[in-house]
């Protein structure tokens, strides 16, 4: 069991990327110190630890610094062997990594663009996110979670869909997370947010709406001043 001071996590309360790391640490029963970052006023600590991207989450383990949330998940899984997140079989591992990259690169990226744009740009982004979610709909194949009986790496990677995407849909006046189009994914999302470890670490919905609404206004305003 890690000494609490030995594992530190720099994060932001509303970030789905930070949350997925906390879920992983909690699932494995790893104690850690959490340091909240003010993302509009980045600390010298963050800039020192992650000079390349200057983003959270950043995991510090006994002096070793790991950044990029999906990579942090792999590091956690390879360092603490209990409650494995990634499957053992090389092909299943490849599939988990592949689908995580699709969810990140095609669903999340486009959903974020759709949230913070309008007109043709928004429509196109909604279309791309929906298309990608359509591919993911088939992946779970009758299991309770993407990881099988229990939560795994791919559940944590796609987890943001369950709690953040509905908020983005509301703030962005769109409907990517559609139960009619994606019944399997929506059903999985319902199970995912009810899991005790996950539930404990979900940011409050009302605060999220305010945050993303405000962020959306600022992004849209900066676009019109080009």
């Amino acid at each position, binding site marked *: 069991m890690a000494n609490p001071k030995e594992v530190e996590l720099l994060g932001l309360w509303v970030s789905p990327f930070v949350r997925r790391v906390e879920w992983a640490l909690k699932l494995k029963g790893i104690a850690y110190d959490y340091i909240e970052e003010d993302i509009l006023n980045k600390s010298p600590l963050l800039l020192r630890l992650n000079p390349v991207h200057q983003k959270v989450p950043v995991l510090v383990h006994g002096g*070793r610094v*790991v950044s*990029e949330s999906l*990579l942090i998940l792999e*590091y956690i899984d390879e*360092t603490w062997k209990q409650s494995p997140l990634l499957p053992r079989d090389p092909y299943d591992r*490849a599939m988990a*990594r*592949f689908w995580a990259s699709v969810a990140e690169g095609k669903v999340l990226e486009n959903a974020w663009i759709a949230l913070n744009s309008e007109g043709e740009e928004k429509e196109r982004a909604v279309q791309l996110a929906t298309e990608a979610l359509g*591919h993911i709909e088939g992946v779970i194949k009758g299991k309770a979670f993407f990881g099988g009986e229990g939560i795994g790496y791919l559940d944590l990677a796609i987890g943001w869909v369950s709690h953040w995407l509905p908020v983005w849909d509301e703030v962005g006046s769109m409907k990517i997370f559609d139960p009619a189009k994606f019944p399997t994914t929506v059903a999985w999302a319902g199970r995912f947010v009810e899991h005790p470890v996950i539930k404990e670490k979900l940011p409050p919905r009302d605060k999220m709406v305010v945050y993303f609404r405000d962020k959306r206004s600022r992004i849209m305003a900066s676009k019109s001043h080009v």
Partner: protein
Amino acid sequence: MAKVGEVKLIGAWPSPFVMRPRIALNLKGVEYEFLEEKFGGKSDLLLRSNPVHKKIPVLLHADRPICESLVIVQYIDKSWPSSGPSILPSDPYDRAIARFWAAYIDEKWFPSMSGIARAQGEEAKKAAIDQVAEGLSLLEDAFGKISKGKPFFGGDAIGFLDIALGCFIGWLRVTERTQGVKLLDEAKVPGLAKWAGRFCADGAVKGVMPETEKLAEFAKLIMGKFKAPPPQ
């Protein structure tokens, strides 16, 4: 050991992303069938094997497709564990570092490379070239810290990060030629400049890294197609 016919790779000779699994398979001594895609079209096999991205490379192992070049390289490493050296480092932290820089290369550095060709006008071109050079400077730093005086990012032998970056050397040299700039500059990035020579000379790389001349001709061909007037 895989039987011939059991391992196939859908790809194309100019693609740096395709080069990655080819180098990995060579390091492991795995024989494979190279299914070359024709430029300008996508085969039915490719569309069936990679319906999400419709892109090369795709590895077919006993008819199961695996997509995304770095996912494929890791798959190869785990599937033939006792053949050849380990492609990924053995320590989880070293693995995290290697993956971090590989992700940086794919998400930040490579897009800046393709930005050079897309840049319109002298100023934009210079800005794009500066961005690539900046990235190489970061990678030079990383090389110093990670290689710890050894010939490759992976140490004594080529590893994951060598493959992730090395596959672009051919295209870097073409860019140097067409833009009249030095990117793998011995003065600015001495570690990487020497590493590039070692990488290209390695037995696992020699057969799959196209000659700069051939790549330059291919580049002219595709640029020509993009600049040609649209068909009536």
